[in-house]
C-alpha cells in the first residue's frame, strides 16, 4: 500500500488529523495555562499589611479575580490614598509603577494602599489577534525582573460568553458586548453581577470601608488616542488635579488635564467619584504596544516603546503625542510619569489637608529613575516567566 492510498482512507486521515489537533491543543494549552502563574510582588520595607480583594467580597476568594492588596501605613495618622495598577493588564506602566511603590516606598504619615494587579484575571490571558507576549522583563541590580503582560479585559475562561450588548449597571448605558469584560467599564460593580462587575464591586467596597480619600487609577493608551499623557479627573477632584499638573510641569513633566465625561459610564474616575466620597482620578501614558499602528509585537516594544510605524504615523500628523526614534520608554518615561504624578497628588493633598497628610518617608526618586531606570527599586525574580 503506497502513501497516497494510505492517506486516502478517510478513517486513517481523520485519525491523523485528530491526533495532530490533540497534539497542538496539548502543546499550546500547556503554554496558555502557564500564563496563569502570576509574577511575585515582594513586600517592601513600607508594607505593613497585605489584604486580598476577596476580603471585600468573599465570593471572589479562590477565583482568578482575587488579588493582593498591599497596605503601606505611616507611623503617623493621615489620609488614605488608593493606587490601582493593572485594571488593563496590557498597560504595563500601571502595574510596574504600582509594584515599584510596594517594593520601595515607605509612608511617614497617612496610608498608601496599592493593588498592582487590580484585574488579576486579565494577566492570565492575552487578547486574540493582538499577539501579546505573555511576559516581559526589566533589568535590576541583581538580575531580571519579570512581569506579566495580559489582555485588556478579564480572561474569557473566567467570564463567557460575551453578550451582544453590554449594559452598564446601574446607568443602563449600552456598549459592545466585549466591554462586559473591561473592568474600567464595570464600576461601581455589583456583588451579584458578572465576574468583572464583582471585581469592580470589591474595589468600590474597599474604597467605602477603608474610607479612602483619593483614588489614583494608572493606565496607558495607544499613541493615536486623544486622551494621553493626561490626568482625567472627576469634577470633585479637578482642583487637586490642577495643582498636580502644575507641580508636574515644574518637574519638567508636561501633562494634560481632562474632565471626566459625565455621560461615559463605568470608568473608575466617574463611578468611584459619584458613588463614594473619594476623589477619583486616572492617569494615562503613551504605550505603543497596545496601539493599532504598532509594528512587530515583541517584549522589547513593551519596554522601549520604540516603533517605526508610530514614527511614520507621527510624521503624517496622525498622533496625539510626539513620537520619534527614541520611543517612549517604560521605565524612564511612562512609569516615571505615574510615580511622579502619585507623589504630586500626595503633596497637593497634604497642602490642602494639613491635618490629614499623606507624607512619604521614602519614595522612588525622579533623578535616579531618569538615570538608572527602576533597577535600584526592584528586586530580581526568582524564576523567569
Amino acid at each position, binding site marked *: 500500500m503506497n502513501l497516497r492510498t494510505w492517506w486516502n482512507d478517510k478513517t486513517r486521515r481523520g485519525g491523523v488529523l485528530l491526533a495532530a489537533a490533540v497534539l497542538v491543543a496539548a502543546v499550546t494549552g500547556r503554554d496558555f495555562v502557564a500564563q496563569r502563574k502570576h509574577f511575585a510582588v515582594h513586600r517592601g520595607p513600607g508594607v505593613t499589611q497585605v489584604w486580598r480583594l476577596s476580603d471585600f467580597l468573599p465570593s471572589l476568594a479562590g477565583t482568578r479575580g482575587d488579588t493582593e492588596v498591599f497596605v503601606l501605613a505611616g507611623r503617623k495618622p493621615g489620609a488614605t490614598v488608593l493606587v490601582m495598577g493593572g485594571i488593563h493588564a496590557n498597560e504595563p506602566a500601571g502595574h510596574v509603577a504600582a509594584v515599584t511603590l510596594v517594593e520601595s516606598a515607605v509612608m511617614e504619615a497617612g496610608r498608601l494602599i496599592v493593588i498592582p494587579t487590580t484585574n488579576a484575571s486579565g494577566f492570565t490571558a492575552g487578547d486574540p489577534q493582538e*499577539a501579546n507576549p505573555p511576559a516581559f522583563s526589566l533589568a535590576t541590580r541583581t538580575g531580571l525582573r519579570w512581569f506579566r503582560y495580559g489582555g485588556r479585559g478579564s480572561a474569557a475562561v473566567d467570564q463567557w460568553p460575551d453578550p451582544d450588548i453590554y449594559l452598564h449597571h446601574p446607568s443602563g448605558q449600552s456598549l459592545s458586548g466585549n466591554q462586559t469584560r473591561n473592568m474600567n467599564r464595570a464600576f461601581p460593580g455589583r456583588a451579584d453581577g458578572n465576574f468583572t462587575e464583582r471585581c469592580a464591586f470589591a474595589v468600590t467596597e474597599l474604597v467605602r470601608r477603608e474610607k479612602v480619600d483619593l483614588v489614583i487609577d494608572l493606565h496607558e493608551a495607544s499613541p493615536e488616542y486623544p486622551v494621553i499623557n493626561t490626568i482625567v479627573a472627576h469634577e470633585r477632584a479637578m482642583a487637586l488635579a490642577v495643582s498636580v499638573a502644575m507641580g508636574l510641569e515644574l518637574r519638567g513633566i508636561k501633562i494634560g488635564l481632562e474632565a471626566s465625561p459625565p455621560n461615559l459610564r463605568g470608568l473608575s474616575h466617574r463611578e468611584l467619584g459619584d458613588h463614594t466620597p473619594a476623589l477619583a482620578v486616572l492617569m494615562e501614558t503613551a504605550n505603543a504596544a497596545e496601539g493599532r499602528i504598532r509594528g512587530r*509585537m515583541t517584549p522589547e516594544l513593551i519596554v522601549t516603546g520604540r516603533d517605526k510605524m508610530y514614527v511614520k504615523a507621527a510624521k503624517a500628523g496622525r498622533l496625539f503625542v510626539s513620537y520619534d526614534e527614541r520611543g517612549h520608554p517604560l521605565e524612564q518615561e511612562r512609569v516615571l510619569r505615574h510615580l511622579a504624578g502619585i507623589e504630586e497628588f500626595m503633596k497637593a493633598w497634604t497642602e490642602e489637608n494639613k491635618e490629614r497628610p499623606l507624607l512619604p518617608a521614602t519614595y522612588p526618586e525622579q533623578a535616579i529613575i531618569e538615570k538608572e531606570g527602576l533597577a535600584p527599586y526592584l528586586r530580581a525574580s526568582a524564576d523567569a516567566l
Partner: protein
Amino acid sequence: MEFELIILLVMVAVFVGAFFLLRLPVAIGLMVAAVAGALVGGEGVPLRQLVEGMFAFFDLILIIATAMVYMKVLEHSGVLHTLGRQVTEAFHRRPTVLLMALMLLVMFPGMITGACATAIFTTGALVAPVMLNLGIPRVQTAAIIAMGSLIGMIAPPVCIPAMIIAEGIDMPYVGFFWPLFLLTIPTGLVVAWAMGRRHLRHDLDPAALAAAMQPSVFPAHGWKLYLPLVVLFVLMVAPKVAPRHVYDIGLPLMLTISAGIGLFTGEKVRLREAVQTGMKEAIPVMALMVGVGMFIEVMTLTGARGYFVAASLALPKVWLVVTAAVALPAFGIISAFGGASVLGVPMTLALLGKDQILALSSIALIVGVGEMVPPTAVAALFSAQLLGLESHFPVVRRCVLPTLAVLALAVAMLVWANWVGKLTP
C-alpha cells in the same frame, strides 16, 4: 521596501497561490499564508499565536455550528417548506410588497445582534424558500439575503462596528439611531427591489404554485410546528427588550434549545443525520473563521498589520476618504469587525472635524461593505451555504453593483457629513 511590506506581500502571494493555483480551500489558503508570513518574519511556526488568533472567532464558530444544526432540524421537521408555502400562498398577489417585507425580515436579526451570520442563518433560512417560490433564482436569492444581512448588521439599534469605533474614541454610543436608520433601512428596501423586481412573477397561478411546492405539514401538527421559531424569537428579543430582567444566554445556546424543541414539534427529525449534515456543511465556513483568525494574528505579530494601518493613514488628509473607502472594505477580506477596530478607530480620529456621529455612521457602513469583499466575502459565503450553492463567487458577482451603490452612499455621507448634520435635528 520595508520588511513588513515584504511579509505582507508574501502572505498575500501564498494565499493567492494556494487558492487559485493549488485550488486549496480559502481556509487552508489563509492558514498556509499565516504560517508563511510567520516563517518569513522570523517567528518560526508560532503555535501559540496561531491558536490564540482563531479564538477571536470562537463565538461565531459556535453560532455557525449550532445554526446549521438548527436549520437542518427545521428542514427535517417541515417548518421551512411549510412556512414558505403558507407565506407564498397568502401574499403571492403582491410579490413586490412581500419582497420588501422579506428584506426587512432578513435584516431584523442583524439589527438586534449586529452580526450578518445571525441574519442569514435565522430569518434568511425562513425567507429563502419564499423568495424561490416567488420566482427569484437561487443565486439571486442568496445575493439578496447576503445584501440584507450586510445592511442589517449596520442598521440600528445594534451596530457593532459603530460601537467598536465609538468606544475606541471614547464617544458614547448615543444619537446613532436615526443616522444609521436613514443610511440602512431605505437602502435595504431599494436594494431588495432593484435586485428582485426583474425576477418577481406577478402571474403566479395558485394551482400551479401549490403543485410545485412541497406539501404542507401544518394540518398534521398545527401551530405547534412553529414553536422552534417562536422560542428562538423570544430568546433573542427578550434580553434586548428587558435587559435588566432577562439574561442573554448567547445565540449558540438559544439555537440549541430551539433545535431541541424542534425535535418534538413537527415531522420526525433524524437527529444523527441532521447533526452530521449540518456540521458537514458548517465545517468549511468554520474553518474559514479559523484561517482568518490565524492570518490576522500573524499580521499583528510580524508588524504587517501595523504597516497596513500606518500606510493607510500616511496619505494626505484629502485622500483619507478615498483610503477609507478602499482600505476599510479591504480589511473586510479578513475581518470587518477587525477592520473597525484596527483601521476604523484611527481613521475616524484622523477625520476629526466632521460631524462625528454622521461620519462614524458612514464609516460603519463602509466597514460593513467589507463583508462582501472576495475571496472571503463572508456574507455571500454564508448565504451561498444557506442556499446549497457550491461556490459563493456567483453570489458575490450578483452583489457587486448593489455593494458599490451602498459604498457610494456611505462615502457621500462621509464627505458631506457636516452638511447633512445641519439638516438633521
